């Protein structure tokens, strides 16, 4: 029992006092503050909240002692320091009836009830607090004497406040645990989270997105995305989300892009999300996580600049070495066979350096989107045939069977013939490189896309080589990636070839797929849309001929 009781000007009391005056304009603010205190008091925090709440309450009452009891976990969370009666604790903990009148904790009704009891507990006030979760907390106020009228009123008021909160909790977004989790997630996740309607109006916009874009949830919600996400890239990837996926069953999307923030700053963001469809497959909403990747991009750019400079710097001495070696080769009559061999080896090593420098530069240009594709109407068969002829000799020298089957159907596509040649040269060269016995076969397939009805042509390049372990399959098309098996073959390479191949194909509206089994071989399938007749006539003037 405290000797000095006063009503301190605690925040708690202020809030309650404010809440009393219904017309107070600050009412909502205080209510929200309290609400937040309550809603953020789940799990371990409940204990902290209760002990804070208990202290405040204990100071606010003229008489009586405060005990807060967690029914679910059957333990006392807060106990007024003045309570020394151990038997009280024991009784409550053991969930035994507290009073001689047989009132058990289980039966404590909601709200405030004041019970008179035998000594040492004269009166008990109980208040059942239901927090958002399924916890049930009891507030028990004990007093050696009957609780004075003023405190009684106050306790009734506290009960009223809690009921008000409970109502708020249920009417507002705290209806269910999931919704609360969702709110916690959207507001506290350290990534931008946005939910678009199908016409790309913003429905959810969390705080981290304000950090990224400068627009607050209040400013963003309800607006069309174009007002708040200003895309700086040539193609508006965002508006493409709903349009380009409309007819496919694809639902995930991921892309990086440049935007202009509210403060007119340019930022790189990475957006990954998925489309939410209704039962009939129509797009209803799109949800996406947004991350600020400006730092990563700046770093990547610096790295690329470095590689670019380093490569250009490398090219000069390589040119000189290769040049002098070739001058030496043209004066090789006086050299012994051994010296000639040294010279040839040095020359082919230099050739490899030239190729490596070239690959590095191409990767950088691809990454920075600086590579130009000179799109023309091309016959896919012509290009594959030309590359096959170039490489068939290499396969023959290795004792491999080399088979090209030309198709009876039309393979006209729109692509850059030089890049396309590079793609197939790389794939066929790889097939020969990683095959020691057996065959390389190249064939064409024609099919119609199920959803879009688009005509497609696929070039299938199949080898009976070392194959790729399933664990390595995913990384095959990443840059600087080489499988252990490839490295074990002691074949030269920086792991850039397939990255370049895939990028080239995708920049030309194509796709590449790979199937492989270790020791059985690999099959690469390169697919392009067949050019529509209308498109052909548009580009006809630029026909590419071999």
């Amino acid at each position, binding site marked *: 029992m405290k000797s000095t009781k006063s009503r301190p000007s605690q925040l708690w009391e202020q809030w309650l006092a404010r809440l009393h005056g219904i017309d107070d304009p600050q009412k909502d603010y205080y209510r929200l503050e309290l609400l937040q205190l309550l809603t953020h008091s789940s799990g371990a925090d409940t204990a902290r909240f209760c002990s804070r709440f208990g202290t405040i309450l204990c100071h606010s009452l003229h008489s009586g002692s405060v005990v807060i009891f967690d029914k679910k976990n059957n333990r006392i969370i807060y106990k007024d320091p003045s309570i020394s009666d151990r038997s009280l604790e024991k009784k409550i903990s053991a969930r035994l009836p507290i009073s001689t009148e047989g009132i058990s904790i289980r039966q404590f009704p909601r709200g405030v009830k004041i019970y008179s009891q035998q000594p040492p507990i004269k009166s008990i006030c109980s208040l059942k607090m239901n927090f958002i979760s399924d916890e049930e907390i009891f507030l028990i106020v004990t007093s050696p004497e009957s609780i004075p009228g003023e405190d009684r009123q106050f306790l009734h008021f506290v009960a009223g406040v809690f009921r008000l909160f409970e109502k708020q909790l249920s009417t507002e977004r705290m209806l269910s645990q999931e919704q609360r989790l969702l709110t916690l997630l959207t507001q506290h996740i350290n990534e931008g989270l946005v939910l678009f309607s199908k016409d790309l109006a913003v429905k959810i916009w969390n705080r981290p997105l304000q950090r990224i874009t400068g627009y607050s949830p209040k400013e963003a919600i309800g607006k069309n995305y174009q007002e708040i996400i200003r895309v700086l890239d040539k193609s508006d990837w965002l508006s493409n989300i709903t349009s380009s996926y409309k007819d496919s069953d694809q639902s995930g999307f991921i892309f990086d892009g440049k935007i202009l923030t509210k403060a007119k700053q340019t930022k790189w963001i990475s957006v990954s999300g998925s489309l939410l469809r209704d039962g009939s497959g129509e797009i209803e909403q799109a949800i996406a996580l947004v991350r600020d990747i400006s730092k990563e991009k700046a770093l990547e750019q610096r790295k690329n600049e470095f590689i670019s400079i380093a490569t*250009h710097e490398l*090219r*000069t*001495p*390589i*040119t*000189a070495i*290769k*040049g*002098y070696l*070739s*001058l030496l080769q*043209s004066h090789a009559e006086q050299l012994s066979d051994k010296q000639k061999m040294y010279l040839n080896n040095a020359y082919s090593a230099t050739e490899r350096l*030239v190729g490596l*420098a*070239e690959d590095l*530069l*191409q990767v950088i240009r691809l990454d920075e989107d*600086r*590579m*130009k*594709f*000179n799109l023309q109407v091309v016959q896919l068969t012509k290009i594959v045939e030309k590359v096959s002829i170039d490489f068939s000799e290499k396969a023959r020298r290795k004792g491999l069977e080399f088979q090209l089957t030309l198709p009876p159907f039309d393979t006209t596509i729109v692509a*850059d013939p*030089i*890049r396309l040649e590079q793609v197939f040269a790389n794939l066929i060269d790889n097939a020969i490189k990683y095959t020691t016995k057996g065959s390389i076969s190249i064939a064409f397939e024609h099919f119609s896309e199920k959803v879009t009805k688009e005509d497609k042509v696929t070039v299938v390049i199949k080898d009976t080589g070392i194959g790729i372990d399933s664990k390595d399959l995913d990384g095959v098309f990443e840059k600087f990636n080489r499988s252990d098996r490839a490295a074990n073959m002691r074949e030269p390479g920086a792991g850039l070839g397939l990255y370049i191949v895939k990028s080239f194909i995708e920049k030309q509206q194509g796709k590449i797929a790979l199937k492989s089994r270790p020791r059985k071989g690999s099959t690469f399938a390169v697919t392009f849309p067949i050019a529509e007749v209308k498109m052909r006539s548009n580009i006809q003037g630029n026909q590419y001929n071999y």
Partner: protein
Amino acid sequence: MTKKKILLVEDEPLLIGLYKEAFSEEPYSMSVAESGTDALVQVNNNKPDLILLDILLPGMNGFEVLRKIKASSKSRDIPVIVLTNLGSEETDKDRQLALSLGAIDYLVKSYHTPEEMIKIVRSRLSSK
């Protein structure tokens, strides 16, 4: 018959040495300019039959030099082959810029042996 004159615009000693050496056995006389300004002076004083022009030069870059050569009626007709160790020979922006400015060819130095270079020069000079 007087030897045809080739002007090599290049600032990298390693490559000046290489190309001078390679061209020394050919029936050409090769002079070297190590900067754009120097190149323009030489073009003016001793008009070459062909120019091999590097892009990365101290001060004025190769494109500027090319623009000036093509802007003057005196030197407009000199064939210019742009040499570079930047970019690539295929569908590169630099290549298109060089060709649009009037260069007859765009070669990446590290791709070609001196002999190939000589062959290209020879065919360009004979077709002139």
